[in-house]
C-alpha cells in the first residue's frame, strides 16, 4: 500500500505576511525529504502544518488516501523532533522516551521493553536514568529522536534537529540519522537551512523561498541542474556571468584554470584562499570576477601564484543558462 504524504495548495498567512502561498508537494513513502531554504522561507511552517501544529488557511493534506487536514496532532500519529529538543528537564531519558507511550493503553511491561529497544536503537542504554541536563547536546538529540520514534509513527518530522550541535557532532549524527532512517524505512521530512546537510542526507530536496517551492529533486539534480538562479545560488557556490542580457552560471569546481600560454579567456589571480585539499581562487578580468576551486597541488605544479596571469576555460557541458541573476547576487 502506498502511503505517501500529499500536500495540496497549502496556504497560511500571519496577518499580512504570507508564510505559505499555495504549496503542493508529494513526499514519497520511505524516503528522506529535506525542506531547504533561508530563514523565513516557510519551511518550518510547512513542517508544523504537516504535524498538525499549525492550521492551514486553505489546502488539504492526505496520508495515502486518508485526508488528515482537520486532524489534531495526536490523531495523526507523527513523530516530531523540535529544534530545541524540548526534552522535559525533570524527567530522565527513560521517562522522556516513555512519555508518549503511557497514554496508549499499553501495559507497563510492554512500555519498558519498548523504551529499552529505543535506547538501544539510539545507543544510549547506559544513559537511561540520566536527566537531560546530564547529557551532552548530541545525546539529548538522540533522546528526543527516541521519544519521537517510540510510538512507532508513520512519519518522522525533524525541525532543524542538528542546528544546535557542534560541527563534528553534527556530521556524525547526520550519518547516524540517515542510517537509522534507512534501517526503519520510515518516511522522514527534515527542515534545514544548511544546504550541505540537505544534499548529504536527503533522497529528495525541496528548496523553498518566500513561502513557495523553488525546485524539488534529488540532491544531484538540484546541484547540477538548478531550475532557477535562486536555487543555483543557494545550493552550493556558483558564478554568474552576464553577457548581453544572457546569464551563464558555472560552479567554481568546474572552472578550469591553466597557466599562461594555453588557449582560453585571460585573467589574473586576485586572491587565493587555502582550503586544505583544494584552493579557492578569485580570478579577475577587467570588471568580471570569477571564483574557481582547483586542487591545491595544481598551483604548485603549474606555478600559479598571487597576481599571476592565467587562462580560463568554461566547459560548455557545465554551463547553465538563465534569464537573470538572483536578487542580491
Amino acid at each position, binding site marked *: 500500500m502506498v502511503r505517501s504524504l500529499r500536500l495540496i495548495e497549502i496556504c497560511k498567512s500571519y496577518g499580512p505576511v504570507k508564510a505559505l502561498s499555495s504549496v503542493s508537494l508529494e513526499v514519497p513513502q520511505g524516503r528522506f525529504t529535506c525542506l531547504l531554504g533561508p530563514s523565513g522561507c516557510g519551511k518550518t511552517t510547512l513542517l508544523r502544518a504537516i504535524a498538525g501544529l499549525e492550521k492551514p488557511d486553505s489546502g488539504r493534506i492526505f496520508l495515502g488516501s486518508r485526508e488528515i487536514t482537520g486532524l489534531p496532532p495526536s490523531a495523526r500519529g507523527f513523530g516530531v523532533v523540535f529544534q530545541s529538543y524540548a526534552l*522535559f528537564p525533570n524527567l530522565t531519558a527513560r521517562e522522556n522516551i516513555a512519555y508518549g507511550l503511557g497514554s496508549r493503553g499499553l501495559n507497563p511491561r510492554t512500555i519498558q521493553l519498548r523504551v529499552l529497544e529505543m535506547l538501544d536503537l539510539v545507543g544510549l542504554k547506559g544513559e537511561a536514568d540520566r536527566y537531560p541536563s*546530564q547529557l551532552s547536546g548530541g545525546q539529548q538529540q538522540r533522546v528526543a529522536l527516541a521519544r519521537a520514534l517510540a510510538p512507532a509513527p508513520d512519519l518522522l518530522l525533524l525541525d532543524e534537529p542538528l542546528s544546535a550541535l557542534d560541527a563534528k557532532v553534527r556530521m556524525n549524527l547526520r550519518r547516524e540519522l540517515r542510517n537509522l532512517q534507512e534501517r526503519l524505512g520510515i518516511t522522514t521530512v527534515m527542515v534545514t537551512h544548511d544546504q550541505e546537510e540537505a544534499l548529504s542526507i536527503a533522497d529528495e530536496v525541496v528548496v523553498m523561498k518566500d513561502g513557495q517551492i523553488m525546485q524539488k529533486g534529488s540532491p544531484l539534480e538540484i546541484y547540477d541542474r538548478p531550475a532557477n538562479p535562486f536555487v543555483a545560488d543557494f545550493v552550493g557556490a556558483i558564478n554568474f556571468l552576464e553577457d548581453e542580457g544572457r546569464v551563464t552560471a558555472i560552479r567554481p569546481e568546474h572552472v578550469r584554470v591553466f597557466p599562461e600560454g594555453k588557449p582560453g579567456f585571460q585573467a589574473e589571480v586576485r586572491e587565493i584562499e587555502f582550503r586544505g585539499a583544494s584552493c579557492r581562487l578569485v580570478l579577475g578580468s577587467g570588471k568580471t570576477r570569477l571564483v574557481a576551486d582547483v586542487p591545491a597541488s595544481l598551483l604548485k605544479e603549474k606555478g600559479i601564484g598571487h597576481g599571476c596571469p592565467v587562462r580560463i576555460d568554461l566547459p560548455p557541458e557545465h554551463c547553465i543558462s538563465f534569464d537573470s541573476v538572483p536578487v542580491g547576487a
Partner: protein
Amino acid sequence: MKGNHRPFGTDELCQAALAGLFLALLVLFVFAPLSELFLKAFSEGDDGLSGFGRFAGTLSDPALRLSFWNSLWVSMTSSSLACGAALLTALSIYRTRMPGKPLVRGLALLPLFAPTMMHGIALVYLFGNKGLVTGLGWNIGLYGPKGIVLAEILYVFPQAFLILSAALEISDRRLYEAAETLGAGTLKRFWTVTLPGLRYALLNAFFSGFTLSFTDFGAPKVVGGNFNVLATDIYKQVIGQQNLSMGAVIGLLLLGPAVAAFLAERAVSGLHSATVSSNTVPVFPSKNPLAEFFALSWCSLVGILSLSVVGAVLVAALVKVWPYDLRLTLDHFLFRNVAGYGLESYKNSLFISVVTAILGTAAAFGGAYLVEKTKSPRPIREAARFLALLPLALPGLVIGLSYIFLFNRPAFEFPGGFSLKNPLHVLYGTPWILVAANIVHFFSVPFLTAVTAMRRLDPAFESVSATLGVPLLKTFRRVTLPLCFPALLEIGSYFFVNAMVTISAVVFLYPPSFKPAALAIVNMEDAGDIAPAAAMSVLLLVTNIAVRAAYGLLTQRVKKKSELWLGKERKEYAAA
C-alpha cells in the same frame, strides 16, 4: 515563523472553555464590582441628589478637599523619605563589603510581616503621650501628620528596599570596570553608572510607595489624631455614617492617583525591560573602609529602628499596665474582656489566610497557565491578562467598598421589569467574601510570578505533548507543575502573609460573627485596649515569620532536589 504557536486538538475546546471560565471569574470578581462602584458614585443616593450633581458637590466639599491634599502630601513625603532610606540601605548591602548583610536584610524586611496597625502602636509606645521616648523628655508631637509619615515610612520602606535590591542585584560589573579604566573616580562612577541604572527602580519604588501610603488606613487610624486623610474619611463615611454613596465618591478619589501611579509605573517599566543581558557579570564591591564605616553606621541605625519598633510592640504586649505597672505578663495574649473576639479572630484569620493561599495559588497559577500556554482565542487571553493585572492599581479600600455594592445586591433589575438574581449574593455575610476580596486584592503579583516562571519553560513542551498524543493536563501535572514548584510556594506564602495582615479590603466585608485578627486589632485599639492589640500584632508577626521560614526551608529542599535537572537548564534559559 517559529515559536509559540500553540497546538490545536481535540481538547482545544476544553482549553478554550477553561480560559473562558477564568475570564468569567475575573469579570465577576474584578470588573463587575468596579463597575458597581462607578454606578454608585454617579447614581442617585439616599440624599436625593442626582449622581453627577452630588459628585461635583462632594468634590467641592472643603473638608474632603483638605483630606485629599493631606493624603497627597503626606504620601509623597513618606514615599520620598522611605525611598531615600531604602536606597542607602540597599547600596550598603550591594555596593560595600559591610559585614552582617543577611541580618540587615532580614531586619529591613521585618515590617513586611506585620499589619500596618502595628507600626502605629509601636510609634504610640515610643513617641506617644506616655511613650518611652516622650518620657525621656523628647515630645515630637506624634499624633497628626508626623505620626502618619513615620508610620507610612515603616510600611513603605521594605517594599522600596525590595524593588531597589532587585535592581542593584542585576547591575553589570563590566560597566564599572569600563568606567574605572576610563579614569572615573568613585563619585563619578556613582553618578554615571549606579544612579542611571537605578533611575527606573527608584521611580517604580516611589510610585509603589506613594500608592501604598495614599491608600493605607491602618496607620492614620492609630496615629492620625485629628488629621484627616482620604483613607480614614472613607472608613468614617461607610462604617460610621453608613453613607455608602459618599464612600463611593471618596473611593473614586482614592482610585485616581493610584491608577495614575500604576500607569506611570507601567510606562516606565515597559521602557526599561531589556537591560539585563544574559552574560551580566555581578558586581563585587571593592574594599573601602570609609564606605564600609558609613554603610555599617547607617544600617545599624536602620536595624535598631526596626528592632525598636518590634521591641516596643513586644513590650506593649508583655507589660502589665504601661507605664504604671511594668511587670511582665502573658495575660494580654488571652484577650479576656477585650473588644474584638480575641483568639477567635486569630483562628478566623488563619482560616482565611490558608484558604486564600490555596485558592489564590490555584487561581493565579492556573490562570497564568491558561493565558500563557493554551491554545484559546486570543481576545479571551488578552482580556484575562488585563483583568488579572488590574488589581495592581486597586487600593484595598476600593475593592472592599465595591464588593459591598456588588455582593449586597440581591438582584439586578433591567429596564422592562426583567430581573436577574445575583449569584454572588449568597457569599455576602460569609467568610468566603473575605477570601474572594483577598484573592483579588493580592492577585496581580502572584499572577506575574507564575507568568514569569512559565515563560522560562520551552514553548515546545505543549507541542511535544500534542504530537505524542498526551493530554495537556498530564503534561501540566508531570512537567509544568514540578518545574514551577518554587514559584508555586512563593505564590502561596505571598497570599498567606498578606491575607494575615490586611485590613483595607476586608474592613467593609467581614461578617459580624467572623472577625479577622487584623480587624480585632483595630477594634481593640479603638476601645483603648492597646496592650491586647499589641499582643495580637505580635501573634500575627510571629505567624508570618514562621510561615516565611517554612517557605524558605521548603524551597531549599526543593531546590536541592531539582538541582540535578535545573543546573544546565537555567543557563539555557538565561541564554535564550
